Every structure is written in C-alpha cells, then in structure tokens.
C-alpha cells in the first residue's frame, strides 16, 4: 500500500488526542462505527451481502460450484475466500497481482470461517468421494476507510448466512433452482483493534490505522469461544491487551450478530 | 571482567554512561548486538563481534572504482550503496577496477558517503575481513600493525571498511596472520600471540 504524507501528518494527532481520552471522530475506545448490513443484493450470486462500517464499504458474494473433494476428506466440501483490494476503493490500492495485505486479509477471513467450523463441510457433500460443493466467497472493497478485516469478515458471514444451495442434476447445477439453504453452525465475528501508543482502540478508521503500531484481531462466537487471533504489523502487544481485547470483542460481537 | 553478550542481554543495572551498541530500558542497560562487554569499565558499551561497515566522517577506507560519471566516480567501499567521489583535484587516471584508499569526507543521514583524497594503488592484493575486526588488526596505538609489518615485510594498508591492500614481502603469511586475528579477535593477549605465530611460521 502506498503511503500518504498528509495522512501521516494528521495521524500524529491521533495519539495526542487519545492521551486526552478522545478518539479523533469522537467514539469511545470500544465503540464500532455505524454498521449496516444489506443481504441478498446480487441475483447471480448464491448469497451476497454489502457491509458498511462508517465510510468503509465491502461487498461479498458466494458461489457454490460442484467439484472434486480432497482425497483426505472425501465426504467434505470446502470454501475458499478471496479478497480484492482494487484501485476503485482507494488511491492507496494498486492494480496487479494480489498484494501481501490482501492475501493476509483473505487468509484471516478464510480461517475465521473454516476453523470456527461456521460451515459444516459435511453438509456440502453431494456424493461421497465424488462430488462436493466448493464455496467461493469473493470479497471486494468498494470504499476504504480503515478496518477492512472486520468489514470483510462480517460480509463473508452475512453472504454465507443467506446463501442458497443450487440443485444438482447430472453433476451440474441447474440454473435458478435451489435445493435448500446453507445453514451456518456458528457466526464468528471478527473484531479488530489498533494499538496506538498504550491504547487499544476497536475498529480503527484509516487515520487510526495510519497511526497504529500493531493490529490485533479476535474472532468470537456466540457460544463463548474465541475462534481466531491474528496479530499484524511490526508493533508488539501485551498479554493484558489480548485479555481486554477478548472481553471487548465478546461484547461488540453480540451487537453485530443481532444485525445479521 | 570481559564477557560475551547477545542482543537483549542485560549489561548492567547500575547507572553508567552509555557507549556504543547499548540501549536503556526501565533504567537498565542492555546490549543490542552480539559482542564483548567489560563490566569493569566506566562506560557501558559493547564491542561487536559481527557487523557491517557504516561510513563515518574521516575514515580511511579501501575502495574500488566502479564507474566514471561526468563529474566524478562511483566507488564501492563495501557500504550499503556506492559512494560518490568528485573529480575535482584528482590527477591520477582512474578507471573501473582501480584500487584506491580514500577518505570519507561527508556522510549524510542515509549513511551515504562522499569520498575524497584518493591514493591509487597499483598491483598488490586485496583481502577482506569483517569490518568490526579492524581495530584488532591495528591494535593499541598500532602495535599489531607493527608486529605484522615486521613479521612479514609487506607494505600494507588496512581500511576501516575491512579491506586490506598489501604488496611485496610475504603476502600469503600476512593474510594467514590476519585470518588468525579475525578468528581469535575476542581472546586476550593477541599481540604477543601473533608475534610468536609469525616467528614460528617464518622458520
């Protein structure tokens, strides 16, 4: 990602503001920006969703395609998450092959769904050992104003949550006919924090992301499990930071889950 | 007493003046590099055992001319980037591959150096060692240089950047001796040991 000198200059203010216990946009330390979730907006996708988080806007679409299962799990389908940080979303994104940032983003979202067992892969099986569904979740950033991690993860879950399973005939999908709905076992919500100085703030916007030394994401589920950690960027965090992040994440995720 | 420390190892909990390659954290002083520290010294500092050459103002280094530009030359001194040397006042015909000893006349905050006062060497051989070992090759007040010069009868110059240029006399013996110094640079009594070594090798 390119750097912007103006943003860097402005971001110096973020820490001074935090020391007076105010965030630049007036939020509390553990407060999300305004979230809105729209579901089922694209007809060609089996499931789709648009998530806005303040000025950050992300869309996700799910396609379920029949394919061959992995030999070590013949009765399980799988999912694959891809994210695209296209120049449409921000002057800081470059075209070309996926950047390391977007690869990390898609892998964190991917693991968040996979490892929390949000989707029961056995239910994606069509005929054991021969045909299973492979779910492709493709996420596009539309407008970038910080915290793509949470926006993308919510969008992916929202899109999967209302995805329809296509009807299969002769190992091919039948157009516009569906055999049922994909059921989510869990709805993990990712909550991302920025460490700025000694402060830990939830849902950093672009300015706060420019100022942060470290980024820390926690995924939580409704049955009181922590389902993923991911620490990024060169800064460090402490054990206490992780503890307080987990507590905040549980609270915040409850609110978001209601909106799904 | 001298001891070997690694990055992040505690040097002292006392308040001391801080020398090179140390940093303080919560009132204690730690090493930031692998090296040797002397806890009897008034300064808390570490002499690194490994490392690269960072140009300093006034250093004499041995460089190799890489290309000629319109107004000067680009010289490789084993630093992070090639260094510029102005043509002003240079009479010797320099070309790619010329070996020169030069003075670092300017260093900016990016560790980029400008060079001046070249002395061209013709013939001879170059040997490279780790730049952090150069002080041991020189010894206290040049004592080690003297031992090496007498022991091998060569004419040689040691650059701060770890390059040694030598000509005449027993060059092979010189390089062998320098290699030995490099390997044992963290041990005491090196000067005496080297005079013995050179005497033995001569026979």
């Amino acid at each position: 990602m390119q750097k912007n000198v103006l943003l860097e200059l402005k971001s110096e203010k973020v820490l001074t503001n935090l020391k007076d216990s105010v965030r630049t946009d007036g939020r509390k330390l553990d407060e999300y920006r305004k979230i809105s979730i729209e579901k089922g907006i694209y007809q060609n996708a089996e499931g789709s969703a648009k998530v806005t988080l303040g000025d950050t806007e992300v869309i996700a679409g799910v396609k379920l395609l029949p394919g061959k299962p992995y030999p070590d799990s013949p009765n399980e389908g799988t999912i694959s998450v891809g994210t695209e940080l296209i120049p449409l979303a921000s002057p800081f994104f470059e075209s070309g092959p996926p950047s390391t940032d977007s690869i990390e983003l898609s892998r964190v979202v991917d693991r968040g769904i996979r490892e929390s067992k949000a989707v029961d892969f056995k239910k994606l099986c069509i005929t054991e050992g021969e045909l299973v569904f492979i779910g492709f979740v493709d996420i596009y950033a539309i407008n970038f104003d910080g915290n793509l991690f949470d926006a993308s993860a919510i969008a992916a879950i929202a899109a999967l949550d209302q995805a329809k399973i296509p009807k299969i005939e002769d190992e091919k999908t039948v157009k516009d006919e569906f055999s049922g709905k994909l059921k989510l076992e869990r709805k993990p919500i990712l909550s991302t924090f920025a460490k700025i100085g000694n402060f830990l703030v939830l849902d950093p916007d672009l300015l706060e992301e420019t100022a942060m030394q470290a980024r820390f994401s926690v995924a939580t589920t409704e049955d009181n499990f922590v389902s993923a950690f991911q620490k990024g960027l060169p800064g460090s965090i402490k054990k206490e930071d992780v503890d307080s992040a987990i507590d905040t994440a549980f609270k915040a995720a409850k609110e978001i889950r209601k909106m799904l | 007493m001298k001891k070997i420390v690694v990055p992040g190892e505690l040097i002292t909990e006392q308040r001391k003046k801080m020398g090179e390659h140390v940093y303080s954290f919560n009132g204690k002083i730690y090493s930031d590099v692998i090296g040797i520290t002397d806890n009897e010294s008034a300064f808390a500092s570490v002499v690194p055992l490994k490392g690269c050459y960072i140009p300093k103002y006034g250093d004499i280094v041995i460089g190799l001319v890489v290309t000629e530009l319109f107004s000067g030359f680009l010289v490789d001194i084993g630093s992070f980037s090639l260094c510029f040397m102005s043509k002003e006042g240079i009479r010797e015909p320099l070309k790619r591959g010329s070996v020169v000893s030069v003075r670092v006349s300017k260093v900016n905050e990016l560790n980029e150096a400008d060079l001046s006062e070249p002395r061209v060497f013709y013939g001879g051989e170059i040997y490279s060692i780790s730049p952090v070992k150069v002080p041991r090759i020189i010894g206290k007040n040049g004592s080690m240089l003297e031992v090496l010069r007498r022991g091998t009868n060569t004419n040689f110059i040691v650059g701060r950047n770890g390059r040694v240029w030598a000509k005449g006399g027993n060059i092979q013996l010189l390089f062998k001796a320098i290699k030995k110094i490099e390997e044992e640079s963290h041990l005491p009594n090196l000067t005496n040991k080297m005079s013995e070594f050179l005497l033995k090798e001569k026979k």
Partner: protein
Amino acid sequence: MTKEEKKVYVNKKGLRLDGRKIDELRPLTIKAGVLKNAKGSCYLTWGQNKVLVSVQGPREVLPKHHSDPLKAIVKFNYRMAAFSVPDRKNPKPGRRDIEISKVCGEALEKAIMLEKFPNTQIEVWAQVLDSNAGSRVAVLTAASVALADAGIPMKDLVTAVAVGRAGGKIILDLNKEEEDAPDAVDMPIALMTSAKEIVLLQMDGLFSKTEWDEAYELAAKALEQIKEKQVQALKEQFLQESMETETKEKIKAEVQ
C-alpha cells in the same frame, strides 16, 4: 473419522502420543553461523522440522521506490522445499507462504533497530527442508538467531513456540498428528521474552478464555527454555578448538 476420534491424545499418565509430557518440547538444536556466503545464518532442528535461515544486508533496496528514508525494511521470505511435506509441494510460493512471510517479517521488525539503517533492506531467507507442524515458529526462532549472527542491532531476540489443544488438553509444541485432532487448536506465539512483548500471535480453532490464559502461561514458560538455546547457539561460535583450554573454560563458565 471414527478411528481418529478414539485416539487418546494425552493418556492417564499424562503422556502424549509420542511419549512427551504436556509441557515438553520436541528436541531442539540450534547452530549459528553455518553458511559462509551469508552475513548471518542459522540451522535449526525442532523435532522433525529442519530449517535453514540466512540473512543478507542491510543493503540497497531494489526496486528503489520501496525504500524508506527513515528506516530499514525487512524482507522475510518463507519458502518450503518441494520435498519438505508428505506430498510434493509446489515450489511456487502460495498464499500461505506469503502470509507467513508477512507476519514473521513484522514480528522481527519490532526487535530490529531499523532506524540505524535508513534506506536499506534486510533480507531474511528461510528455507524449510523438512516439516512436521510448527515450521513457522521454527523459522522465526532461527531467523532471530541469524539476524543476531549477522551483527544487526536488535533490542532482543524473538523467540517463538506453538501451543494448542488436542483431545481436550492444552499442550505445548504440537506435532502434525496432534494438529489434526478433531478439536485441535493451534496457536503460534512469539515474544521478546525480556519485556514480555507479543510480536506474533495467531490462533485457529475454538478456545475459551481460560484456555487462552493457560496456553499463554505454558508458552511463556517454554519460551524461556528456547531463548536459552538461542543465546547458547550464538555464544558457542566463539568457543573454538584453536583456543587455549584455559580461556575456553573461562568463556564456557561465562556462558553458563
């Protein structure tokens, strides 16, 4: 599947499938300064994992516009040899390799005094030669030794270990079999141990908060052991055969 569920990951005596205790590491050996051409290098074996790490630089950044005029940048390259996994691995770096390179590089950036080398890059080349779960923590542990071996100023060594859960028990340093347990949780964590700063933390699976506390304590204790090995590896280089026995013993005493 049913067969796997019957596996007892920790038996009544508190021993694991490979006979280790819950808080026992696989055998770990570290050797610094193994490659002649590199500024710094390290060979590390950790159970079946074998990794080789070399450090080049600081040197000029290419392409030039990637350089930072205020500090050095770290380029971490995690690569797995084609024969390092049970199937053949496509040698082309995949998404996993790129992500690991990114998080490991960022973990090291906190430790290295980057501001001393503006406009340069420090390259870390990590090659996994053989693997059996936990290769990223092996690589990161080796990389910080290689960086110190290159004489690059650092605030502290970075030490990494994986903790997790298999069969309902929190265990240290999972092997592949344990990582494949149905309830497995894998949590690689790296600390700068003296200030207890977490520089790498990832986790996949379902963990309760108390399990996270337990896992952290287990990791923190193990990291002290691993750090000791790192320090020993760095100092060992200077205990050579050619030394007189007297000085050798003296330095040995200091190391201990």
